């Protein structure tokens, strides 16, 4: 069976060790984690995790079922109809072509976030495929460091 990329959104009770329950499930059962983000849901006792994973249809089905089996998990949403965004921070040497970098960042919903004596930091936020394009395009500006935020997603 062909492996597919899937985004799974998990709503969990805010309690100690819930993240290790979930990451432990993935490692114990040999599931892939491409990225995982987590943050509290405002005005509630719950947090949302967004997990990007790869697997066959059967594996993805097992992942959602096994996640749901964990006691603190309230809801598991696995859908192709997700709006996805990922934020990226990139640090360049100040000696690179700043106007080209700025234009490129603008094209990917981004801007210059910080400038210091030696470096410039750019942030962008875009869909995962476009993030990949951006990261390819900036290679020629010799990025010093790239920090990806992981995918966040919301159902359409």
């Amino acid at each position, binding site marked *: 069976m062909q492996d597919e990329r899937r985004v799974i959104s998990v709503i969990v009770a805010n309690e100690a*060790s819930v993240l290790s329950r979930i990451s432990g499930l993935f490692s114990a059962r040999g599931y892939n984690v491409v990225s995982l983000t987590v943050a509290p849901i405002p005005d509630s006792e719950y947090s949302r995790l967004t997990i990007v994973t790869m697997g066959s249809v059967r594996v993805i089905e097992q992942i959602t079922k096994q996640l749901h089996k964990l006691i603190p998990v309230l809801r598991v949403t696995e859908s192709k109809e997700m709006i996805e965004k990922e934020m990226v921070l990139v640090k360049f040497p100040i000696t690179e072509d700043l106007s080209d970098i700025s234009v490129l960042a603008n094209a990917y919903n981004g801007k210059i976030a910080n400038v210091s004596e030696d470096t410039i930091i750019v942030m962008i936020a875009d869909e995962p495929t476009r993030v990949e394009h951006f990261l390819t395009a900036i290679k020629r500006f010799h990025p010093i460091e790239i920090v990806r935020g992981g995918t966040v997603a919301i159902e359409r």
Partner: protein
Amino acid sequence: MQMSGAQMIIEALIAEDVNTVFGYPGGAIMNVYDEIYKQNGFEHILARHEQAAIHAAEGYSKVTGKVGVAMITSGPGFTNAVTGLADAYMDSIPMVVISGQVPMSLIGTDAFQEIDAVGISRSCTKHNYLVTDAKDLPRILKEAFYIAASGRPGPVHVDVPKDVTAQIEEFVYPESVDIPTYKPHTKGNKRQIRKAVDAIAAAKRPLFYLGGGIINANAAMEVREFVKMTGIPAVETFMARGTLRYDDPLLISMLGMHGSYAANMAMSETDLVIGLGARFDDRVTGKLSEFAKHAGVIHVDIDPASISKLVNADYPIVGDVKGVVEEMIELAKESVDPERYTPWVETVDHFDKLHPLRYNEDTANIKPQWVIERVGQLLGDDANISTDVGQHQMWAAQFYPFTRPRQWISSGGLGTMGFGFPAAIGVKRGAMDKISINFTGDGSILMNIQELMTAVEKKLPVINIILNNNYLGMVRQWQTLFYDKRHAETDLSVQPDFVMLAQSFGGVGYVVRTKEEFDAALKDAIEKNVVALIDVKVERLENVLPMVPSGGSLFNMMLLENKKES
């Protein structure tokens, strides 16, 4: 009422109608043991090793259907218990295990007897808690018992730091549980149930595939009725033994790696698998792509994650098997005609006549299978049967005449050597009116032999029947068959004197070399009514057959005729 965390634990156990706690004290759990000393609401049974305490609680739970309770200290007390937790998790046994922990202020400092207990138990429990405030104890204990027993049952571990057991707080035990994130699905979908029954009515060669979930759900009587009214043959998994009576004409036998020829052939030839509370374990299915190749699959299970995990279900039904079978019976009354399956039943009977489960009485030595059969003849329904793990375990599953659910207590999923004896102690405690037999091997019995002391002290007269072949028999069998007879580290010829061993603890021991001696030893052990070791010298090189080699197809079995030990 104001009380300490330790008192709360006692009060909660009494409120949960617990009458037996198995355990072992130590530093971090001392406050709780101090309260155990003062109370008379339940009996505490002191095991002689924490692993055995958990297995005893498992045995108690399996025979009674109640939640098993065990108590241990931090650090090594807890790590010794991990095997038991994992065993209970694999076999879906409802348990609440309470461990002591170092005081909150010392957590994370590598304190004496500190270990990250919830970190370790996370992957081998249904759920676990680290209690950081005694205010949470009543709710957590209530939840622990509820989670352990509801849905697909399993062990729940509650880790309580020493200062929390000393903390004084108001105690009100909750009457109900409200966990918004945990709502087990118990009622099967009506439309799916109807479709499944229609499929049964339309099938030509349907087959009941009965699993241990039936025992857990107390659904054996409903299943017996369903099998009888439909006239459809049935195979049982290892865990489901006792669901149907051994003499039920529609029970073929156990299936799987050491299942009968007829059971495995029926599974290979069926056109509709009716799976009830079974999970298509690899020891059952053999090679997955060849398993029930021509069949549609009905799968009833309380755990959605078990459905279509390994074998795709055409009729998935998530729900409690008891309620689902009740509904199926009602629908089947209108649509299912038992006579439809008569030719299929004849086919299955033919398989069974071709290669019945049997063994050759071809030597002067006692055959291990004979011992199982003999105990069945002599004790039958009067005994509960526990086992350790290995050849003796498979022979017991194959040859004991089971008559009722919860008569069979064995470590199926984890396959834990050392399980049998402590489990049989818990079984005896849970069912004093039955004889508690533990079939064991000369390898397994030494893995929790210290429990002789527990059995003597608490007057729990378990009869251990050691099928002694001076080998780690099952591994030896695989070495013979698949490793060109290189018997690496499986020759156990150096042995204790089991008679003296039993006597030194205050039990009784017997050496048995003939059938007459066996009958006499068993009779004497029952009369003496103390813990016993019956050391039965059996044929050394007997193999468990039939056998589906690991990863092979169910219909490719090694059979008795084809494989004779040289």
